């Protein structure tokens, strides 16, 4: 095997998102992996390496007890909401380098009810930050979108439109959690969580698992597999001066965040421009995040979102369908799995296997963007 191999995805599998009583995160991961292996037409003993991650459901590498103890190298990944993207980055490098030609990437989680909480000392922050009530992710998203709305003339109704789209798409997705459409007024008049964001504009921590089978193009050819090309993956952490989750202070001279850096890098690596993207997943931790991330990734210009959501540009039937499976808003946020759910959905869209959610016109270029604390982002470009 030589270096510089093209990397393709030959199988995807998923356990439904949302609350499933009596099934552990591990069991979801095993189910998703089996589904991905079956989709790829291979068996676990064929798998040469794996990368996997979970925040709350244990060590991914311990899954070999259920999948098969073949002795393969299985690396645990832990990058918050970016875990899936990080795992896929590492897997891609393993194949592109020529070290391996067939591997699995798995992400899974089963979070308890209620908001995320984190020990500030895990992130190198003082204990006081948590005990005095500033270690809350929703505060960051609320304040970031507050300023964005003022700077770029985005209305609250646009925040509501992101949510209604999410639940409308979720209704078409049998694997989603929130599958009941809501009206814009129901979203706007719901209980305020962190102004300007109401309850229905926020995702909830949730449950789910996704697995992908990745291969070199050459191995995929020998297997006769149905492939989607993982054209590029780029992962970035925050630079000094960027405004990210859990920031006790901000520099007056601000730098571009990891979303801007990762997306710019992935389009350059893929040799594709954002204007060529035909189906996208952008991190919609809350409504505002989808809006801001559309511009930060270069998919639209800052401020354009107001017109886009009024005109339905990001609907399944629109010019740039975004979060066609309902995104994080409708699927919930099992942080180990989200980055891979995004890829799973775009792969199915490019294969024409998205069922009732299928984007018409045979899309051939897809994009995913995941973002997480304390300021990391991973983006992919997928082509068919």
């Amino acid at each position: 095997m030589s270096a510089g191999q093209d990397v393709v995805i030959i199988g995807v599998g998923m356990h439904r998102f949302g609350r499933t009583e009596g099934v552990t995160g591990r069991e979801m991961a095993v189910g998703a992996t089996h589904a991905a292996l079956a989709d790829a037409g291979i068996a676990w003993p064929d798998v040469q390496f794996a990368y996997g991650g979970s925040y709350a459901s244990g060590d991914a590498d311990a899954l070999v007890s259920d999948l098969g103890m073949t002795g393969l190298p299985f690396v645990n990944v832990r990058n918050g909401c970016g875990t899936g993207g990080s795992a896929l980055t590492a897997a891609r490098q393993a194949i592109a380098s020529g070290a391996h030609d067939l591997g699995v990437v798995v992400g899974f989680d089963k979070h308890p009810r209620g908001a995320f909480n984190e020990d500030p000392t895990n992130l190198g922050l003082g204990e006081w930050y948590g005990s005095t009530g500033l270690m809350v992710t929703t505060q960051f998203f609320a304040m970031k979108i507050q300023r964005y709305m003022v700077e770029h003339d985005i209305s609250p109704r646009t925040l509501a439109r992101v949510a209604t789209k999410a639940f409308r798409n979720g209704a078409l997705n049998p694997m989603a959690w929130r599958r009941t459409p809501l009206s814009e007024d129901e979203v706007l008049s719901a209980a305020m969580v962190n102004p300007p964001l109401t309850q229905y504009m926020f995702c909830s921590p949730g449950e789910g698992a996704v697995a992908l089978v990745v291969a070199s193009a050459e191995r995929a050819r020998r297997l006769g597999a149905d492939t989607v090309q993982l054209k590029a993956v780029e992962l970035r952490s925050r630079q000094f001066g960027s405004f990210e989750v859990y920031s006790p202070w901000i520099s007056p001279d601000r730098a571009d965040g990891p979303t801007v850096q990762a997306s710019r890098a992935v389009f350059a690596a893929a040799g594709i421009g954002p204007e060529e993207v035909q189906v996208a997943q952008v991190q919609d931790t809350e409504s505002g995040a989808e809006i801001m991330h559309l511009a930060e990734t270069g998919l639209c210009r800052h401020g354009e979102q107001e017109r886009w959501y009024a005109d339905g540009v990001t609907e399944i039937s629109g010019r740039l369908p975004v979060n066609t499976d309902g995104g994080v808003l409708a699927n919930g946020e099992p942080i180990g799995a989200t980055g891979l759910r995004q890829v799973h959905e775009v792969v199915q869209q490019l294969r024409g296997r998205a069922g009732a959610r299928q984007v018409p016109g045979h899309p051939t270029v897809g994009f995913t963007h995941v973002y997480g604390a304390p300021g990391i982002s991973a983006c992919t470009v997928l082509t068919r």
Partner: protein
Amino acid sequence: MRDVALSTDGTLWAFTVQHFEPKPPFRAQGEFEPYGVGYVDLGPVIVETRLTVADTSLLRIGQPMTLTLVPAYREEQSTVFTYAFAPRAGATK
């Protein structure tokens, strides 16, 4: 590393209200009351802070703010305070 003395006055850069009681490590103080959270621009740095106001209709970006203390939680027989910013009294709106 060196210490830099910051002004006790700044302008409100962004704000929100915490409407639900956070899980631990937040240390509650009896019955939960929503509290304001914001960022205040002090010039060389913009600091995240509690606010003395929990009503967004009383706050605006660019509002003059001044440093104060608010009770955070009780520890044994005493109250632990944390820093916060309050709308600056007498400042023109």
